[in-house]
């Protein structure tokens, strides 16, 4: 553009030199310059002018194309009137505006592709074996119960159960967990995971539309449709901003020059300068930079979280999540594994293994979770022929004869009744006392074990500024307090019925004025609480439709550390949103003020406008990078 101007300028001097009289020649040739400048203006701004014209016909005066057209044509007219021949400004404004538009569509397209690549879990086909050969079919045509074949390197298209083959699966796209998961015949597999090593035959248990992969994709794709307050604010702001700036421009073009002419005895020559300032206003009136960067930030934030196995169901939830100050946990299945395990054998008079063997054998006929945990702690095949005379005493325990030894296993009531002196345990959990041939032989402690990462998760929440952690449980207070003390949880409410949990959460919300309350549950029986809390987070929701329905945030795997990660992601995203809002607004208003005072010209205005947009968009894309949070 500058080159063009210089070229025109020299051309102008040549012509005027040839004519001999410089000033006069410039005036004579003014129309020539004018037409020469109009050519690039027309080429660059053609489509904007066309759209502006259409806009006028439709009565859309606040259409940005129309405003750009008015600003640039106005600038040309002012240049004509002032006879300074400065038409480059109009061309530059058009050019930069177009560059800005181009950049915007490239950035949006690119981040959309980025995010769809992150969520590239959609399977394209399913293999069905027909007459000994594999046939590729559309996954949505496969009915429930069909056996599909998944070869190494392929995605599992539909949820199902492995009927044949062993392999390891890469579930990183679903859970963010990079360690491969081994599967064999009888294991459940979820769609979207990638088969790494062996050929698997999978009997489908769901239709494609109901499968995990479809649910996740649907959720992520629709997430940014639930708008956050910041987005609502910006779109409302945009609705008022453009008309307001336009009316101020009109006022600026009329009132100050009128005032100067009436009260300061100035002539009509003050008009063009004020009209120029008003036109500068129109250039700044486009709200696009502001409007584009906000949904883009949320979109990137949700996409980045999705890659980490955290599904956020809407921009509004991302916003609420960033304001969470209190986290309420369900105990079983959330902080603990929800599976009973033998955690200790105490005061035994015989070897640990021997005691466990007697216990497992005596309990071999029971299907109670406690018996199951004893059997798995014993870990060997159980020969039922060794056990005789099994008798279950309700509320107390079991007696049986194992290898000719009289075994009694149960709680302290049983020991009292058998008149066996027993030693109480200081441990938290279910205590099984054992007596062999009427003599006390020690006790086995069975408890629900904490997840390995629970303690770290609570610590991380605290370090990311969560004020309070609360645990709600239906368990006995002794058990609950033990777990809470171990993990470092602030408050425990125990012995709750499922219905009481809603009331407790309501109480916590009331006590926490200002800060938001998140509830974390396993999603299976916590649906009402998940819905009631300011934000419901369901864990390990893989394949559980109920949890995905009820929760606002879904953690794909069981790892509670992801809770603090989700909060950090949301905060980063919201910080970017606020940065963009403030940055764009400050620059725009600064330009308006400088423009009104005549300090900023149109060049500065368009640079500020396009520059702000580019910086805001680049900043928004930063929300995608959340892996190291």
């Amino acid at each position, binding site marked *: 553009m500058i080159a063009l101007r210089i070229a025109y300028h020299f051309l102008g001097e040549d012509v005027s030199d040839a004519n001999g009289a410089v000033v006069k020649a410039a005036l004579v040739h003014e129309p020539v310059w004018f037409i020469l400048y109009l050519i690039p203006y027309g080429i660059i701004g053609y489509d904007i002018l066309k*759209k502006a014209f259409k806009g006028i016909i439709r009565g859309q005066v606040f259409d*940005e194309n129309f405003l750009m057209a008015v600003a640039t044509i106005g600038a040309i007219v002012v240049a004509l009137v002032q006879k300074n021949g400065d038409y480059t400004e109009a061309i530059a404004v058009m050019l930069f505006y177009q560059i800005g538009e181009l950049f915007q569509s490239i950035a949006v397209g690119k981040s*959309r592709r980025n995010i769809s690549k992150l969520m590239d879990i959609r399977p394209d086909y399913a293999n069905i074996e027909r007459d000994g050969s594999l046939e590729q079919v559309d996954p949505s045509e496969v009915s429930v119960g069909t056996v599909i074949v998944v070869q190494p390197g392929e995605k599992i298209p539909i949820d199902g159960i492995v009927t044949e083959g062993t392999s390891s699966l890469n579930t990183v796209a679903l859970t963010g967990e990079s360690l491969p998961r081994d599967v064999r015949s009888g294991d459940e597999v979820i769609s979207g995971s990638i088969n790494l090593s062996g050929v698997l035959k999978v009997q489908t248990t769901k239709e494609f539309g109901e499968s995990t992969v479809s649910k996740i994709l649907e959720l992520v794709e*629709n997430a*940014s*449709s639930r708008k956050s307050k910041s987005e609502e604010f910006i779109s409302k702001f945009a*609705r008022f901003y453009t008309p307001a700036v336009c009316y101020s421009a009109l006022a600026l073009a009329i009132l100050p020059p009128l005032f100067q002419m009436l009260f300061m005895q100035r002539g009509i020559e003050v008009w063009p300068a004020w009209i120029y300032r008003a036109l500068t206003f129109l250039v700044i009136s486009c709200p696009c930079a502001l409007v*584009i960067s906000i949904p883009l930030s949320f*979109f990137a934030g949700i996409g980045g979280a999705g890659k980490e196995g955290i599904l956020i169901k809407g921009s509004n939830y991302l916003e609420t999540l960033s304001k969470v100050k209190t986290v309420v946990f369900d105990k079983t299945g959330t902080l603990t594994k929800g599976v009973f395990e033998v955690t200790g054998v105490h005061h035994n008079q015989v070897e640990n293994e021997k005691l466990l063997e007697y216990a497992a054998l005596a309990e071999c006929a029971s299907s109670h979770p406690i018996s199951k945990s004893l059997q798995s702690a014993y870990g060997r095949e159980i020969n039922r022929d060794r056990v005789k005379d099994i008798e279950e005493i309700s509320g107390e325990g079991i007696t049986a004869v194992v290898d000719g030894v009289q075994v009694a296993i149960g709680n302290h009531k049983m020991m009292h009744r058998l008149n066996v002196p027993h030693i109480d345990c200081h441990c938290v959990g279910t205590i099984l006392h054992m007596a062999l041939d009427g003599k006390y032989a020690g006790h086995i402690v069975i408890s629900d074990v904490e997840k390995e990462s629970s303690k770290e998760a609570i610590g991380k929440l605290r370090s990311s500024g969560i004020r309070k952690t609360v645990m709600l449980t239906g368990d006995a207070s002794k058990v609950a307090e033990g777990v809470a003390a171990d993990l470092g949880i602030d408050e425990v409410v125990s012995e709750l019925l499922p219905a009481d949990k809603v009331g407790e959460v309501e109480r916590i919300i009331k006590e926490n004025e200002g800060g938001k309350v998140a509830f974390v549950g396993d999603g299976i029986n916590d649906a009402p609480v998940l819905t009631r809390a300011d934000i419901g987070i369901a864990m390990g929701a893989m394949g559980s439709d109920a949890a995905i329905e009820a929760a606002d945030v879904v953690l794909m795997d069981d790892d509670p550390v992801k809770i603090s990660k989700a909060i950090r992601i949301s905060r980063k995203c919201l910080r970017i949103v606020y940065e963009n809002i403030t940055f764009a607004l400050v620059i725009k208003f600064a330009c308006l003020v400088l423009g009104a005072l005549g300090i900023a010209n149109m060049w500065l205005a368009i640079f500020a406008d396009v520059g702000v947009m580019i910086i805001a968009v680049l900043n928004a894309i930063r929300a995608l990078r959340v892996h190291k949070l």
Partner: protein
Amino acid sequence: MKKTYEIEVDCANCANKMEDATKKTEGVAGCTVNFMTQKMIVEFAEGADEKKVMKQVLKNCKKVEDDCEIYL
């Protein structure tokens, strides 16, 4: 009843304008335009003829943003 339509619109503010225009259309109970995924979710009022309403929606959207497209 809610329905999702694919749309084409090339600026974020235009998407907001489309949303406004759609909301003001008779027979529409609610609408969100998702600029990032280029989708429009329309909630119809009870008893509204979805095809007729969408025709009007398209017309209204074209009025505010000539360049937009809704794939019905």
